[in-house]
């Protein structure tokens, strides 16, 4: 199979993730979409790693996974904190800060 397919798939993943960030209003779903975007990067790293035949990409992907997890943890923590303050869980409502 050609490398192109992996690239296209990863690009699709990235796009889907980005579109998710653009259209979804629930912060939890937005966090999910962010994970998708990171996975897109991870996928292409893996693909290139296979193509190039060196292991660097695969090591990189491991790290990316850890980082992604950390990000989500902090994100969810903030979501919980907001929930406990009974703030609406809607990214469109987060516009105290503007201008």
């Amino acid at each position, binding site marked *: 199979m050609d490398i192109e397919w992996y690239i296209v798939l990863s690009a699709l993943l990235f796009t889907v993730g*980005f579109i998710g*960030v*653009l259209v979804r209003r629930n912060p939890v779903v937005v966090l999910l979409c962010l994970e998708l975007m990171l996975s897109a990067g991870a996928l292409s790293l893996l693909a290139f790693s296979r193509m190039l035949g060196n292991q660097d990409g695969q090591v990189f992907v491991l790290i990316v996974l850890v980082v992604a997890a950390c990000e989500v943890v902090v994100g969810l923590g903030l979501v919980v904190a907001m929930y406990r303050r009974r703030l609406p869980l809607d990214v*469109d409502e987060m*516009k105290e800060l*503007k*201008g």
Partner: protein
Amino acid sequence: MTATWAWLVLLFPLLGSLTIGLTFKALPDRTAGLIGVAAIVAAFVCGVLALIGLQGEPSESRHVASSLWEYANVGGLKIDLGIYVDPLSIFMVLVVTGVSSLIHIYSYSYMKSDQGYHRFFSYLNFFVFSMLVLVLAGNFVMLIVGWALVGFASYALISYWYRRNTATKAGMKAFVINVIGDIGLYIAAILIFKNLGSVDYGTVFEKAPEVFSTNQWEIVAICLCLLVGAFAKSAQMPFHTWLADAMEGPTPVSSLIHAATMVTAGVYLIARCHTLFELAPTAADVAAFVGLATLLIAGTIALAVTDLKRIIAYSTMSQIGYMFVGVGIGAYSAGMFHLMTHAFFKALLFMAAGSIISAMANMQDIDKMKGFRKAMPFTAATLIIGALALSGFPGMSGWFSKDEIIDFAHFRRGMYDWMWVGMLIGALMTAIYSFRIIFRILPGPACEEAQYLIDKGHVIHGEPKNPATNEVEDTEVGYPGEEHHIAEQAGGMKFAMAILAFLSIVAGVLQIPGVDEVVTKFLEPTFENSVFAHMHPSTGEAWLGLTEGGLISIAGIAIAWLLYIKRPDLPGKFRQRFSAIHTLCVNKWYGDELVDFLVTNPVKAVGRFCNRVFERFAIDGATAGVAGLTRSAGAAVRDIQSGMLRGYALLMLFGILAIAVYFLIRSL
């Protein structure tokens, strides 16, 4: 030695001015007045000593240049603080200091009840200093300095009663017009430097004939620029409008500055620069024609207006017109001679007028004056002498001087014959308006003020009014009150007027054709290089001219007698019959309005345009526009910054896409 005396001539008035000015709190009034008089008399004495020194030199080397220090020197334009003494300047020095001395003496009494006595004498001394700088200047820049300083002194003295609105306005007008004249001189001096490489009289007059051919455009331009200065200072058309308004100043000022000395500076300038004007005959003709036009127009105005001082002022313009014609057509010594005699009799006329005006409680309208012959016999006598001299009555000084100019024009023939005719008409008018004053004021039943003077022996105390607008004003402007002196009762005034009256009568002896011709001979060293130096009418022709002049003068007096004594109803009839002409003359040929229309209003309009339109819309508008643009850009940035997270993500997407597209295009 001559130079030293000349410097001393300059020094005394300056010292006097400074002393009086700086000690205004310390010295009593009378002392200040005495210092002022003494300074000028000392200057006169030094002038005489300089004259003696100069006459001691042989005729061909009768000029001295002297410099105190280098005033400025850049790029070859070297300006010395220097004077140039020759018969012409000494002649002027003597006229100026002589007449000034007398007017100072007159003022010493006349201004007695004025509050600004120190200020007056300080200014007056300063004026004399400036005038002497003007006549003694050794180069064109010094000439400009003197030229402008007399303008300043004139301004200060016109606005002397500075709390009078009309006086300050008049001062401003005089000053600004004079500055315009100064600019003419600036440009002339710069042109002279550019073409001749120097501004020193000696060098300039020596080199000019070598550098310029006759009527070469540069020399014509130089002379025309000089003429702008001369016209402005001497109140010739079209710069004449300030002089009548200048009568707002105290009468001695009118007498000294606006009759005897400063206003004749233009004549002096042309005479001084005759070398240049002879290289540019066109310019000289311009001077002569403008002089002619002025003398005719001013004459008609003098026939119509009723303000005593303004009649004399227009007469001054008219007489200076004669002088311009004189120096314009090459009759230099005649012009200078007329300058001198005019100084005498016009100063005298003003002094007499001042005496009458103070008796009239500051009223200047001749319609209201009557019967002063009995009330003020001495003043009346001097007034008559002045009028006779002015109208060129045979035997009087004015007869010799004015008719010499008129005669020279006839002598030069050609188009100058037209000038001759014009000047004769002018002479007729002169005689009429001179005696209009006499016949309106002196004879007849005494008017209220004159009667008061006869009865009470002192000046009537009227409510202080502005003579020009009849507005009531505060007394602190130096209004002549009861204590004010009039010629009849003040020794100083009487003395000055007596001497001037004497000179007005006899000064003509100096220049009797074919007999002595003192002035011509005295000035000969200055004008010896002139093409007209040895051109003058024969004695016979001269006497023929004098006869014509005398007849015209007598005719004029007769007409005046007819109009104002014999048939006093006639002037009214004429006024009705020729109401258009009368209106024109009373309104001074609409000179002010013309200047307003052509110059003042456009300039003011430009100012208004700059202020209200350009500054507001172009300058402030551009500033506000740029600021507004920046602000609206800021507003746009803030609008995009909506706080909406998804909006931010969208903008990022655009950013990413833009960069991706950029690189994709580059990679192709």
